[in-house]
C-alpha cells in the first residue's frame, strides 16, 4: 500500500479546501483521510449530521464537497444515509443505476453519542451497506463547547463549567465504540487522524466490507480543548499513548489492538496540555480528580486488553 502522503497527493479530492473549519481542526484532517481511502473510481454519497463539519463546509451558495452530499438534521444521519443506500439498491435492482456508489454518514459526538444514537443504532441493526464515522471532539463544539455524552470526566464545558463547587463534568464518557461493537457489526474501529496510515486502513476496510461498519475517530478541537492549531497531532498522539483513546478494531466480533504504546503514559500528560483541564492544575492541584480519571482509564484499558486477548 502506498504511503498516506503519496495517496493524499495523488488521489481524487472529494473535500476541497476553502471551507470554514478552524485551522488545525482534527475533523477535516480525518474526513480527508476517510475519503482518501476510497478507490478513485468509486463514487460516494456523504450524509452529514448537523455540526461543525456541516455548517462550515456548506454555507449556501457555497459547498466544499465535490461528491454528492446530503444534510438532513442533527439526529438522523444514520436513518438518512440508510434511505440513500436503500434507494441505490432499489434502483440497482431495477437496472436504473449503472454507477457504483459507497455510502458514508458522519456526525460529531453530539449527533452520534447523544441525539442521533437511536437513528444510528437502527441503521446499523438493519444492516445497510454503509459506513458511519463519528468525529468525536468530545462536546458540542459547533455551539461553543457544551458537554456531551463523550465529554471526558473533569473537563470544563460551558454547560458543566468548573466553578467554586464544581470541577467540570462529573461523569465519565460513554463507551460508544463498545455500544456499536455490541451491535455485532462486521467492522468496528477506533482511530485518530494523528495516525493516518492506521486510519486509512480502517476506513478502507470499512468501505470495502459489506454491511454496516462504524469508526469512532477522536478529533482534537482547537477552541474546545483550548489547544493551539499546531497541537492537533501531538494532543491526539498523547490520547493514544495514555490509553485514553486506544486504537483497536473489532472484526466480526474479534477484538484486536492495532497499536499498543510501548510505554503507557500517565493521563496527566494528556490533561495538562489542554486548557479545558487547566482548572485541575491551577489555582490548586486537584490530584483527587486526576486520580479518578487515571483509575477509570486503567480499568477500561485492562478490560480492552482482555477482550483483545493481550492479557493484562
Amino acid at each position, binding site marked *: 500500500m502506498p504511503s498516506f502522503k503519496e495517496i493524499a497527493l495523488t488521489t481524487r479530492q472529494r473535500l476541497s479546501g476553502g471551507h470554514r473549519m478552524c485551522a488545525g481542526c482534527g475533523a477535516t484532517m480525518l474526513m480527508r483521510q476517510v475519503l482518501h481511502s476510497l478507490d478513485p473510481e468509486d463514487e460516494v454519497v456523504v450524509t452529514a449530521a448537523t455540526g461543525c463539519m456541516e455548517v462550515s463546509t456548506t454555507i449556501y451558495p457555497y459547498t466544499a464537497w465535490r461528491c454528492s452530499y446530503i444534510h438532513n438534521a442533527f439526529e438522523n444521519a444514520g436513518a*438518512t444515509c440508510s434511505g440513500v443506500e436503500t*434507494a441505490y439498491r432499489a434502483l440497482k435492482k431495477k437496472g436504473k443505476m449503472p454507477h457504483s456508489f459507497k455510502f458514508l454518514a458522519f456526525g460529531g459526538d453530539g449527533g452520534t453519542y447523544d441525539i442521533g444514537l437511536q437513528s444510528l443504532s437502527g441503521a446499523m441493526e438493519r444492516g445497510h451497506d454503509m459506513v458511519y464515522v463519528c468525529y468525536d471532539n468530545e462536546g458540542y463544539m459547533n455551539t461553543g463547547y457544551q458537554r456531551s455524552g463523550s465529554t471526558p470526566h473533569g473537563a470544563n464545558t460551558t454547560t458543566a463549567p468548573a466553578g467554586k463547587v464544581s470541577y467540570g463534568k462529573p461523569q465519565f464518557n460513554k463507551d460508544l465504540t463498545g455500544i456499536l461493537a455490541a451491535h455485532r457489526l462486521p467492522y468496528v474501529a477506533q482511530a485518530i487522524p494523528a495516525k493516518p496510515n492506521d486510519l486509512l486502513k480502517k476506513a478502507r476496510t470499512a468501505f470495502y466490507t459489506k454491511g454496516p461498519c462504524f469508526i469512532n475517530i477522536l478529533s482534537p478541537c482547537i477552541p474546545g480543548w483550548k489547544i493551539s492549531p499546531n497541537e492537533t497531532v501531538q494532543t491526539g498522539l498523547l490520547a493514544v499513548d495514555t490509553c485514553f483513546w486506544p486504537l483497536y478494531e473489532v472484526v466480526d466480533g474479534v477484538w484486536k489492538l492495532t497499536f499498543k504504546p510501548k510505554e503507557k503514559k500517565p493521563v496527566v500528560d494528556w490533561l495538562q496540555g489542554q486548557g479545558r483541564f487547566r482548572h485541575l492544575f491551577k489555582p490548586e492541584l486537584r490530584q483527587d480528580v486526576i486520580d479518578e480519571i487515571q483509575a477509570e482509564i486503567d480499568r477500561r484499558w485492562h478490560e480492552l486488553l482482555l477482550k483483545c486477548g493481550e492479557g493484562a
Partner: protein
Amino acid sequence: MPEKKLALTGNQAAAYAMMQIDPDVVAAYPITPQTNLMQKFADFHADGDVSTELILVESEHSAMSACVGSEAAGARTMTATSANGLALMVEIVYIAASLRLPIVMPVVNRALSGPINIHCDHSDAMLCRDSGWIQLYCVNAQEAYENTIQAIRIAEHPDVLLPVMVNFDGFITSHGMENVLIHDDEKVKKFVGEYHPQYPLLDPALPLTIGPLDLHDYYFEHKRGQIDAMEAARKVILDVSGEFAKEFGTRNDGYFRAYKLEDAEMAIVVLNSTGGTVNIVVDRLREQGKKAGAINLRVFRPFPGEELAEALAHVKCVAMMDRAVSFGAMGGPIYNELRSALYEMDSRPAVISRMYGLGGRQIETSHIEEVFDDLFRLLGGGSVDEYGYLNVRQHEPATVKA
C-alpha cells in the same frame, strides 16, 4: 389485475394504491390506526407483488429521515403514519417540504396525545398545517385509494415538487369495510408513470450538495420558492383530478365536492368521513323542503379560499365543522381560514364554528341535525352561538374574545 370491486377497509384500499404505484422505497414504522395499512403493504411485499425496498425503521422520525434520503437519492418514496408518529417526524416533515421532495404519505388521522387516545380527530394533520405539505382529505375508502394515486402525480409535477399527505379518518375509514373499486393495474401504473427525478444524489455527472446551511441572505428566497410551488399546486391538483376522472370514469371533485349546494340557503363545510354523514342529513332535510347543502373539502393545503367563497356566495348561513382545536383561537383552524376567505365578498354568508369528534367522540346524524337547526334558526333571523361544540358534556360554549 383488471378493474374489480373488493370489500376493503380504508387502510387496505390505501395499501392497494401503494401496491399499484409500486414505489421504489417505502420506509415506515407501525402506529395505530395506520398499522394494518403497512401490514397489508408488507403482505404485498412478501408475496412479490411489489418491487419496493422496504425500510422497517425504529421510529417515525427515522421513517421520514429515510424517506428524505431515499427521495433525494432519486427513488420514488412513500410512508404512512398517524398522530404521535406524525408528531415525532414533524421536524423532518418540514425539511422534506423545504428540500422539495415529492414524498407521498397517507396519514390515518388520530388524536394527538395527551391524554393518549387512539381514535380519530384531525389534530395530527393540523399540526402539519404549515409544514409546506399539500394536504388531501378523503370521505371514504374509495377516495383514500384514489387520492393516494393522484397524490403521486401532484407531488412529482415539475411545477410543484412538494410532498403530499393523504388524510383519512382513523378507524372510521381506516378500519371500516366498504366496496372499493380497484382500477385496472396497468391503467394505474400508466397514470402514475415512471419517476424521473430532476436532481438525484446518485448522479456522478452532477454531484450535489443537498441541505446546506441557508442563512439570512437566501433562506427567505427559498421559502418564497416553496410558497410559489404551493400556489402552482392549485392548477396541478385540478388538472390531475380532471385527468383521473376522465381516465377512470370517476367523479371530478377538484378542490371539494359541493353537495346539493346550487340552491342551498344553508350549508356545512366539513372534511373526511363526516362529509358522508353530513350529506345524508342534507338529503333528509331536502325531503323536508329545507334548502340544505354541503361541501366535502378535499384539499386543505393549498386552501381553495376563492373557490369556496364563490361556491358559497349564494348561501346565507354556513357552519364550519372542525375536528381539531386551535386553543385560544377564534374557532377551529379551518373555520378561521374559511371566514377569512369570505371576508372580501360584498354580501357574505354568516359563518359559525362547530367543533366535533375530538378523540373519536361519536358524531351522528342527530348532531349534524343540531348544526343545521342552528343554521335554520339563523336563516329565520334568530341568534345562535358563534362557537359551539357537538356532543360534549359541559355544553356551555366557551367565551371567545377577539
